[in-house]
């Protein structure tokens, strides 16, 4: 056991010295995730509201104006422009001045009064799928309620749905996005720090020197993981404080459990950084590889898109991404107040992944160490 991790303590001590010596990198490493947290935390809002809308009212009647008011009252549409011709209507959508175009035909009021079906055209710009989906369902809703009101004047509707959104009652986007963002920010910072540190040693020839000493590959790797793990853990605490104080995201579960369950994730991303460092010859290469892990972690981890909606192949990939499990842990504890009993499997999977990658990195390292 002692032989397997030989050299761990001196390597660990030296790495702490590097960290304290290189203030620039340290500040950069700690401040950058914080900056991104502020940027993305404030910028991302998935609730679709106030879609710019252009209206062509050919009917110009009391009925048509009432329908337009109903659309505007939904908070989803905001009438920006009134068009005077069909061309102008299409033109406004094409130019991006409006994302929804509503055309009420000249016979709208007449059709209503004769009891036949009045059709209203709703053009939706499909280039943003979440806007399009929201626009379609809301306009259907508007039409449906308006129809019912005409059929049952003054009466009460037989069915009413009263949705109760659990855990995030105001459906605040920050509550949903900031916890997931923690995983992404921690991952980028940690992978970069540890991968660059090892590749720097390769570039400077100190790694070659170390291979000639009795230091064991695992001693070197774990010795490097500890300081950067400590650093990332500190950053995690800072991010959680900002999340709670600035973004007012309530933590429903146990904070200590959250910190504890973060350790397997840190282990995994540190190990991933080590694997990357065995593949990269230069710091630039390591940087690119580290950046390459971001997009899959953002798009395939369930952070933004639901995993269940992905094609089977990508669902498979998402189960190989560490962030998938950590996002479950973070959202579970912060948003739903989940406990260890609900989340332990995620921690076990992360730990297994991390250990596997450390051994992979150590083996790879031994193979190349000689070259």
């Amino acid at each position, binding site marked *: 056991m002692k*032989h397997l991790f*030989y*050299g761990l*303590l*001196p*390597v660990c*001590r*030296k790495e702490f*010295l*590097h960290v304290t*010596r*290189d203030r620039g990198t340290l500040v950069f490493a700690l401040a950058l995730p914080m900056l991104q947290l502020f940027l993305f935390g404030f910028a991302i809002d998935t609730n679709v509201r106030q879609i710019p809308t252009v209206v062509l009212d050919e009917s110009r009647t009391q009925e048509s104006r009432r329908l337009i008011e109903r659309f505007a009252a939904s908070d989803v549409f905001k009438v920006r422009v009134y068009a005077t011709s069909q061309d102008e209507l299409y033109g406004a959508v094409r130019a991006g001045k409006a994302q929804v175009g509503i055309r009420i035909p000249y016979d709208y009021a007449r059709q209503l009064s004769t009891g036949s079906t009045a059709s209203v055209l709703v053009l939706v710009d499909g280039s943003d799928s979440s806007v399009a989906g929201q626009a379609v369902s809301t306009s259907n809703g508007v039409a449906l309620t308006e129809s019912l009101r005409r059929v049952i004047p003054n009466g009460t509707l037989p069915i009413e749905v009263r949705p109760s959104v659990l855990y995030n009652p105001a459906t605040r986007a920050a509550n949903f996005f900031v916890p997931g963002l923690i995983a992404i920010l921690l991952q980028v910072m940690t992978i970069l720090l540890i991968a660059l540190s090892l590749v720097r040693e390769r570039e*400077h*020839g*100190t790694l*070659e*020197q*170390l*291979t*000639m*000493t*009795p*230091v064991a590959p695992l001693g070197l790797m774990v010795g490097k993981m500890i300081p950067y793990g400590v650093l990332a853990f500190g950053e995690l605490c800072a991010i959680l404080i900002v999340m709670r104080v600035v973004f007012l995201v309530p933590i429903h579960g146990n904070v200590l459990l959250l910190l504890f369950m973060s350790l397997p994730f840190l282990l995994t991303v540190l190990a991933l950084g080590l694997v990357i460092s065995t593949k990269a010859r230069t710091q630039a290469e390591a940087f690119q590889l580290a950046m390459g892990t971001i997009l899959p972690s953002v798009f395939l981890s369930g952070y933004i898109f639901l995993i269940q909606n992905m094609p089977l192949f990508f669902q498979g990939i998402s189960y190989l991404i560490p962030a998938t499990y950590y996002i479950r842990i973070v959202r579970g504890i912060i948003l739903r107040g989940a406990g260890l009993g609900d989340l332990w499997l995620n921690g076990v999977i992360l730990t297994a992944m991390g250990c596997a990658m450390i051994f992979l990195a150590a083996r790879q390292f031994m193979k190349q*160490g*000689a070259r």
Partner: protein
Amino acid sequence: MTAIIEADHLTIRFGSFTAVRDVSFAVGRGEIFGFLGPNGSGKTTIIKALCGLLPPSEGTGRILGMDIRKDAAEIRRHVGYMSQKFGLYEDLTVAENIAFYAGVYGLDSRRARERTREVQELTGIESYMNRRAGQLSGGWKQRLALACAIIHSPEVLFLDEPTAGIDPVARRALWDLLFQLSGRGVTFFVTTHYMDEAERCGRVGYIYLSKLIAIGSVSDLQRLPEASPPGTSRVQITTANSSALLDSVRKMQGVHEATIFGREIHALVDTGSMPALQAQLPSSSVTVIEPSLEDVFVTLTYRIMEESR
């Protein structure tokens, strides 16, 4: 002589490329063994194999009697290694670098203190202990690298082109240190491509195209029949303008090779054609000399190149 470093028909292949081909030699205690060869000839590969980092494809080697195939970890505790890259952490101070290597070699704190004092005295680096390694001059970096490489009192020291890019004064200072250590029984394996450095070594091996071509003391090598084939002589032509004369000397009958050496021309010529040569160069003096180490290695290299053609 008990061999401290021993290569026994060592062959190392990377895929289809043979980096080291059937190399055997032995180095005794306290010896300074020089290993010469052009870049890419397999010098570093042999060092790595001898330190147990590269399992040989065929043959084996022994360091202090330990087999490089089986006792790699143990071997690394007993050998020191210093390369031209120095392997220093430039953002750490001299003291921190030394302390790190003391830790890596598993010295306890009392022994580390003791050894730090000893290597400080040997290398004279005391006054720089609190300076960052990156701020040292090349010569001092090299002394620090040596201090780190011997912190665990290794019995064997591998130096891989230790003086590449170092000024002549620092080079001489380093060699003085090496002689001092070898006097205390440390065995050295030094690779270089400086001929004058090779001439300081007790014995020299010459590796070319992955093969060990020649091995022996400097005077052994100078007398190698391959370097001075029978019937030929190594001569020095002293003349006023050697560079102008070089081309015509090369074309003369009986001249095998000729090169400028300082202000003279060194040539390998048929002994029988020497009088004719002197006759053709009335204003120059032609004298027989011992071949320099460089002459020997150039001649050997040409021979191999011709044979492999």
